[in-house]
């Protein structure tokens, strides 16, 4: 999940400093990693999760990702039957403040999409690992799972990412 247009239109007029550096207050203590990570899932560094299964894998974004996005107001999903590729965008999540591309953690064919997200995009906030799932994919290259992180690796990854900014 790559954050595009982070502060929506504000970003444009931000005329942000060339330092591109967040102030030191942004790190530790106040921002210890506190989002939930679920065991048994695999994670991409762009903050999507995949629930592996031989036949069909379920894909969504992590609690950490939804926490940073804020309230989700619109979800754009691919059509059933389309194909997705590892690391490539398959849809987008819009929050009040930002548009974010969602990348697929694995390659394959989309066999089901979560149509509930059309009416209730906020499921991504309230239940990012369960009711807020986005697509189900028939994997074409099962070995791709090996390149993804385990829950403990992903927790560490998020801690480091938060701490370095």
């Amino acid at each position, binding site marked *: *999940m*790559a*954050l*595009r*247009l*982070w*502060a*929506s*239109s*504000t*970003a*444009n*007029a*931000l*005329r*942000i*400093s*060339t*330092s*591109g*550096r*967040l*102030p030191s*207050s*942004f790190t530790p203590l*106040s921002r210890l990693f506190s989002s939930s990570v679920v065991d048994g899932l695999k994670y*991409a*560094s*762009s*903050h999507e999760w995949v629930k592996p299964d031989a036949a069909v894998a379920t894909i969504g974004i992590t609690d*950490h*990702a939804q926490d*940073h996005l*804020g*309230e989700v*107001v*619109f979800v*754009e999903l691919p059509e059933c039957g389309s194909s997705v590729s590892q*690391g490539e965008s398959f849809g*987008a999540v*819009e929050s*009040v*403040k930002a*548009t974010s591309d969602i*990348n697929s953690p694995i390659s394959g064919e989309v066999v089901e999409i979560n149509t509930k997200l059309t009416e209730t995009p906020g499921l991504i906030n309230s239940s990012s690992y369960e009711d807020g799932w986005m697509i189900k994919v028939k994997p074409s290259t099962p070995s791709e799972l090996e*390149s993804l992180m385990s829950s403990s690796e992903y927790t560490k*990854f998020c801690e480091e*990412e*938060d701490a*370095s*900014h």
Partner: protein
Amino acid sequence: MKGSGIWQFRQTLLRRISQQSAKGSNRSFATEAGALKKTALYDFHVAHGGKMVPFAGWSMPIQYKDSIMESSVNCRTNGSLFDVSHMCGLSLKGKDCIPFLETLVIADLAALKNGTGTLTVFTNEKGGAIDDSVIAKVNDKHLYIVVNAGCRDKDLEHIGKHMELFKGKGGDVDWHIHDERSLLALQGPLAAPVLQFLTKDDLGKLYFGEFTTLDINGAECFLTRTGYTGEDGFEISVPSEHAVDLAKAIIEKSQGKIRLTGLGARDSLRLEAGLCLYGNDMEQHVTPVEAGLNWAIGKRRRAEGGFLGADVILKQLAEGPAVKRVGLVSTGPPPRSHSEILGSTGEKIGEVTSGGFSPFLKKNIAMGYVKTGNHKSGTNVKLLVRGKTHDGVVTKMPFVPAKYYKPTS
């Protein structure tokens, strides 16, 4: 996949934007020094959970613990307190300060009553906007101006250059930049009742657009009844050593109902109010006429001109501009700036300059520029978002009705 984390990506984006804006001549000294400036309220923001981000060379809160949605709605139901000290307050003084500034802006400053202010635009030779700004006439020899943080350097350079020329011809004008002061914006239905607890002056006599100097919470403040949300409210210029005390007092007197609110919600609120954000909805090449600010061009100024780019602007007033700023409501994903606006047959008729999901109205709202003829309310359009078109309709602004405090006669 490596290195595409949320924060990293955001920083990449921020850096890209800043490099673009740095191409102009207006790099601030702070960004060159690589350090972000902090307002007097910086520690206060951090202590209240402010998520600090770089903004126009300053470290500013984009939001606090409340979500942007909650913050925006609370502003309209209770109230918001914003730190806007990054904006630049400036006093022009001298017996010729009014004729001088009238050479640079479209407002009829001479006709303003003492203690009143107006939104205006600093224009360039081509009639485009250098910045938008609120100017208050303290008296005939004193104007108080607030300009955008992102435009500070170029505005001061522009005003300073013309001021030297003006003085060279014997004009009496000088400036004072209020770096010793902080600026707080207090907005929403509780703004006036809460602020009244902190001053002996009767705020009931200070109407929308008016300016006064008074004691608030023991400090001498400049108070303007104005804002950037469409709600009733104030902008309070307070000596920086009193800024934290004033912020605390406002929150306390409201019993916590007025919430600290960051730049994220400020952007949603001003869009709902149909107000321009300089850099998005107004730029160097956009004239006040195209931006729909004809009302801000004083009657006498239309007759006499005498400001930069007057020939272009007066011609547009007479003949009508080729493009106009409009409001839009749409279905599907919220359009953002640069989303294309298409006509009924699929031809491009314009571009969105600001857009998002309205926290208060719970639907997509946007503003943008369309070719004249497509600008009327009710005109059906298509909005192109990520390669797909979605239905939209040209809509009157403000999207949320303004609640300015005006005399009821």
